[in-house]
């Protein structure tokens, strides 16, 4: 009875039939979460990876602007101010020729980061193309390419880089060439493996049945699926390339003075270690934190870009 009383008070006009609205039924109420948006969201949630990303961005900015704001040139020798410790004039001190270490560290960062990123990107492009073509088309081409890669893969990477450096002479471009000459092989191998696996999947078969030609299948169906792995691989390879540059410069083959890189700075730092340890500690700090940041970012990317983990926390 009481319910009826309540119902009488309610205005009947407030109720009306809505019926089916086909458009609204199909509408997506939340913003569409693409693969990349989801990956970015997960990177942001991963504190270590995000910190790594920020460190890299800060270093890149400093590499670009750092040498400009100190007021010194990286080649500027000052015999009255040799081996000075950190001070107001020289934020990181000076080296054995009186050159400002702050300027040299960021000049070195420019060279090291440039070599690291460019050689890795080139490796990825070449390796991705060779591996992709080999894996997708298969047959005799694949057989030949894979035999060549099998043989080349066994050749010690650093030894070939050393020899190439000796032939080409020191310099940024020869360093990049030395690293690319054998560096693409690893990428080619894993991209081929991935493509081989993907091309057997149902969605590729479906696309083929629908009459899609090869290029769109590669670009629209296979590439996006390999992309995550390629980018993860790329992030992991950058610290290795920076490391190799430092190694080659350290043994006297990479960059020649007056140009500098982190490897060159570490080399002269080790030489002065007994008397002026800060000359090793400062460049080492930046080498190590860069490696750390890139490794953390790479780990985070691997988790974020793994399609199997998508949507999970």
């Amino acid at each position, binding site marked *: 009875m009481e319910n009826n009383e309540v119902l009488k008070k309610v205005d009947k006009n407030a109720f009306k039939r809505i019926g089916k609205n086909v458009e609204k039924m199909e509408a997506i109420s939340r913003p569409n979460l693409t693969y990349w948006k989801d990956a970015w969201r997960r990177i942001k949630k991963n504190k270590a990876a995000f910190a790594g990303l920020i460190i890299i961005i800060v270093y890149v900015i400093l590499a670009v602007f750092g040498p400009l704001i100190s007021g010194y040139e990286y080649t500027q020798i000052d015999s009255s101010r040799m081996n000075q410790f950190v001070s107001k004039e020289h934020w990181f001190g000076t080296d054995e020729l009186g050159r400002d270490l702050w300027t040299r560290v960021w000049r070195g960062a420019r060279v090291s980061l440039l070599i690291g990123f460019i050689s890795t990107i080139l490796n990825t492009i070449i390796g991705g193309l060779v591996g992709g073509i080999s894996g997708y088309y298969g047959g005799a081409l694949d057989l030949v390419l894979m035999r060549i890669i099998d*043989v080349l893969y*066994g*050749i*010690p990477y650093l030894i070939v880089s050393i020899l190439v450096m000796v032939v080409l002479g020191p310099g940024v471009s020869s360093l990049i060439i030395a690293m690319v000459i054998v560096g693409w092989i690893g990428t080619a191998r894993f991209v081929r493996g991935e493509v081989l696996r993907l091309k057997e999947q149902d969605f590729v078969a479906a696309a083929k049945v629908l009459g899609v030609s090869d290029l769109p299948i590669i670009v629209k169906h296979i590439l996006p699926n390999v992309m995550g792995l390629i980018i993860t691989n790329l992030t992991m390879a950058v610290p290795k390339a920076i490391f190799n540059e430092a*190694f080659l410069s350290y043994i006297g083959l990479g960059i020649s003075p007056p140009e500098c890189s982190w490897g060159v700075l570490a080399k002269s730092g080790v030489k002065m270690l007994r008397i002026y340890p800060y000359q090793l500690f400062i460049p080492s700090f930046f*080498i190590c934190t860069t490696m750390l940041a890139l*490794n953390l970012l790479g780990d985070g990317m691997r988790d974020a870009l793994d399609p199997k983990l998508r949507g999970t926390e």
Partner: protein
Amino acid sequence: MGKYILKRLGISLLTLLVLITIVFILVRLMPGDPFASDKLTPEIRQNLERYYGFDKPIIVQYFTYIKNILNGDFGYSMKYINQSVNTIIADSFPYSFDLGMRGLSVSISLGLVLGIIAALNRGKTLDYMSVIIAIIGTSVPDFIIGGLLQYFFGIKWGLFPVAQYKGIEYTILPSIALGFYTLAMVSRIMRASMLEVVQQDYIKTAKSKGISNFRITAKHQIRNAIMPVVTVLGPTVASVLTGTFVVESIFAIPGMGKYYVQSVQNLDYSLILGMTVFYGAFLVLANMVVDILYGVIDPRIRVAGK
């Protein structure tokens, strides 16, 4: 199995041949001249070139070189007078081999222990400590680790000799510097693998049978978890080997790495060629042994390799 080994052997030999050819071509392309010196008259120069066979066509030089290598003869050094490449390698290789073996054994054994401890104490302080060690190991280059070890333990605190290689106390710092990266890698892989094995059914079976925790860990968990570590042994040998270049020059150890770097800087053609071929052969062989080892340990690889 025999077929698999044979195939692996064929690829290795081909790799070696390609390596020798690449090295030969690259060395001939190198700028500079090992006989560059004002003191040499043209006649002496010609004699030297004849002596080392540089007057013959390059193809003939190539085949002579291959023939000599097959006979185990790497020729004479062009900078160290009257020393054959063979004697230089024979003199210096034992140091590098000793150092490399110490570096490897230190890093693998400590890495395994660290990984096991970390996995057994998952989420506790010991686990975080092992993570920190792993992070340091993978992000600090070996020349920096070597320099820092030398500075603190050698110079500042005087606990170990600063340089050279004359006895057991001399070997400790270089071995750590050499093995740190591998230690970090092995501990990370072992930790991950231990944690994966814990979830397997056979561990549950063992538990339900009432076997003690210690025996489960020792006999079931560790034994199965060690497999993935074997897969990094190949790359590890390579990284330890190139690590010796740096570590030997920091600690003034008269090993092959030091000679190699010097020969590259001196443009000592025959020494570069000989040492590169030696290194290459060593690495190719090491990789082959590791690959065959996987085949023995894990039958799935053998099947996939066919």
